[in-house]
């Protein structure tokens, strides 16, 4: 188990380095930053001066190493637009994004997993079909449209929930619903498929031959085997929610990381964009690592691979 974790950590580290190189180069490849910084009407010598001041005249790998060394000490540079430290900018916005993503993921798991189990125990009945219809509808609805409909229904017509801002947890209810409905279908389908697969295995017949209750057979013997792909996908979903929160954040006027990324792209504020890209990638790497460890804990055979 420990060896497994260490090996995964090594791989994660390699991926992290690769990601940072790619993230770094992509932005450099998108145009001459010194030109952007200097402004449209800048004189050539001014561009050269800026280029030198920011270290943009050094070879690319030197620029990467400089940036990497600073980043490791927590210094991601300053925003070209506001001149604030990037680290602070991101950390300011992160809580809002996390407060949308994590509870939404928990809610969707709490709904998707039992629903998937239920559908799998009664395949091809009305329950299964209803769950399937829900899944298809849920994944077909664009989240901006769903968010607007929720605002119209609960905010404007019924006046139950606040429609924008992030002052209390009430403000987050509609974002949670919006995000959860987008995530539930995949998790539910995965749970259902996994359960159907596991329920036909020999060891389930053994469990039933032992006289165990239906609940014990389902939730102890079957689910633990069926849940592994759900764990992996949940980790990826969470990464996705952290990195792609723009739509929900803009509809509900939440000032999160998605919003920051969007504004920074428009302003060509490359240190911020770059940092967010690398930050989100690192979130993915961390979450994948976590899901691997959880799965190895759930299924002892994984730790051997």
């Amino acid at each position: 188990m420990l060896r497994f974790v260490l090996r995964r950590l090594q791989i994660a580290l390699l991926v992290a380095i690769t990601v940072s190189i790619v993230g770094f180069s992509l932005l450099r490849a998108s145009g001459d930053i010194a030109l952007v910084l200097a402004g449209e009407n800048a004189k050539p010598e001014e561009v050269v001066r800026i280029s030198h001041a920011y270290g943009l005249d050094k070879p690319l790998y030197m620029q990467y190493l400089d940036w990497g060394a600073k980043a490791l000490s927590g210094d991601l540079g300053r925003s070209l637009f506001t001149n604030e430290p990037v680290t602070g900018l991101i950390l300011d916005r992160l809580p809002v994004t996390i407060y949308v993503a994590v509870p939404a993921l928990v809610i969707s798991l709490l709904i998707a997993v039992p629903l998937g189990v239920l559908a799998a125990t009664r395949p091809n009945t009305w329950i299964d079909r209803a769950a399937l219809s829900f899944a298809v509808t849920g994944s077909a609805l664009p989240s901006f449209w769903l968010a607007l409909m929720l605002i119209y229904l609960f905010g404007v017509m019924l006046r139950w929930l606040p429609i924008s801002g992030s002052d209390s947890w009430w403000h987050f209810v509609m974002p949670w619903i919006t995000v959860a409905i987008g995530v539930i279908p995949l998790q539910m389908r995965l749970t259902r498929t996994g359960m159907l697969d596991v329920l036909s295995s020999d060891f389930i017949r053994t469990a039933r031959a032992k006289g165990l209750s239906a609940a014990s057979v389902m939730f102890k013997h079957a689910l633990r085997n069926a849940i592994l792909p759900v764990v992996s996908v949940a980790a990826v979903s969470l990464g996705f929610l952290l990195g792609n929160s723009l739509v929900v954040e803009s509809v509900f006027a939440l000032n999160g990381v998605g919003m920051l990324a969007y504004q920074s792209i428009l302003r060509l504020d490359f240190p911020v964009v770059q940092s967010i890209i690398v930050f989100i990638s690192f979130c993915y790497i961390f979450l994948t690592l976590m899901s691997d460890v959880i799965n190895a804990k759930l299924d002892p055979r994984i730790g051997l691979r």
Partner: protein
Amino acid sequence: MTITQVRDTSVQPNGGSGHGAPLLDVRGLTVDIAVPAGTLHAVSDVSFAVNPGETFCIVGESGCGKTITSLAVMRLLPKTARIAAQRILFEGRDLLGLSDKEILGLRGNRLGMIFQDPMTSLNPVFTIGNQLEEVYLRHRNSGRREARERAEFLLEKVGIQSPAMRLGQYPHQLSGGLRQRMMIAMTLMCEPALLIADEPTTALDVTVQAQILQLLKNLQREFRTALILITHDLGIVARMADRVAIMYAGRVVETGTSAEIFAAPQHPYTRGLLACIPVPGSQGKRLGSIPGIVPSLIGENEGCMFRNRCPYAGESCRHGEIALRELSPGRGYRCILEPGHAISEATREPATTASQATVQ
């Protein structure tokens, strides 16, 4: 799984050598399974009885209904199966009349089952200890500690060294033979009165097979458990069985004691099977085989199911249901031929065949 109870017409139990009531008394068991092509008549009018502490072998080819019969007794058939029977009496209670909750209380407790493939029959994500203790905790009012002690005791019984260490291991850390020992220990946790073993050695190496069979025999004696052993291997029958039912195409075609079946087989199918056992030293002779294939059990069938492969088949085998001829209680065969018909010609020194099948 739909269950229909056919009205009980005869009261007398149908088998056994007679001391007291049988432990399990199955009469008129029929299992139909809905399949896309129609109805599969997996088991038709199967009757047998198992006495306390004896070994009863159900023998037949793949698809003859032997596994379905045992799953019907356990009431473990899928929802698409329809069971009908006059009765399946176990310890005086009709299993077909029990509620789901009552049958759950019997399974793993009074009724145990060992499956064919030990590699897939244990849950890969729980330790052996967890899976053994679970049965005990489910059926006995006991604590974890008592369950663990019981598990260790049984692992020793099934011949496993350092049981405490083994209990902490996962199935993938054990060989096939060890896993089957674990399965046996698991089914014995609550000392069931009846153990059903469905081809328990088929998936194992030949060297391990003999050990497992010997183990089953010893444990059965020690715990006074009745054993239904399902197999296609007549060598195993000769070595293990007290009494035997030969099944073909969903029907019992012959029943009797092991000695009777091997010494004086009556049904042409049984004789054919015995002729297929290789006899060491009989060089130059062709090994027997039964020509033809098993008929499809989907849709309606009439007459003797074996007739298209039977050397004695005639016009009268085509129609009606062939009745089981009872020669004595527990001894019968399903054929129109008179008892003793042409035995010498169809079998070769049956007694030797049986004993030599044991040796190999």
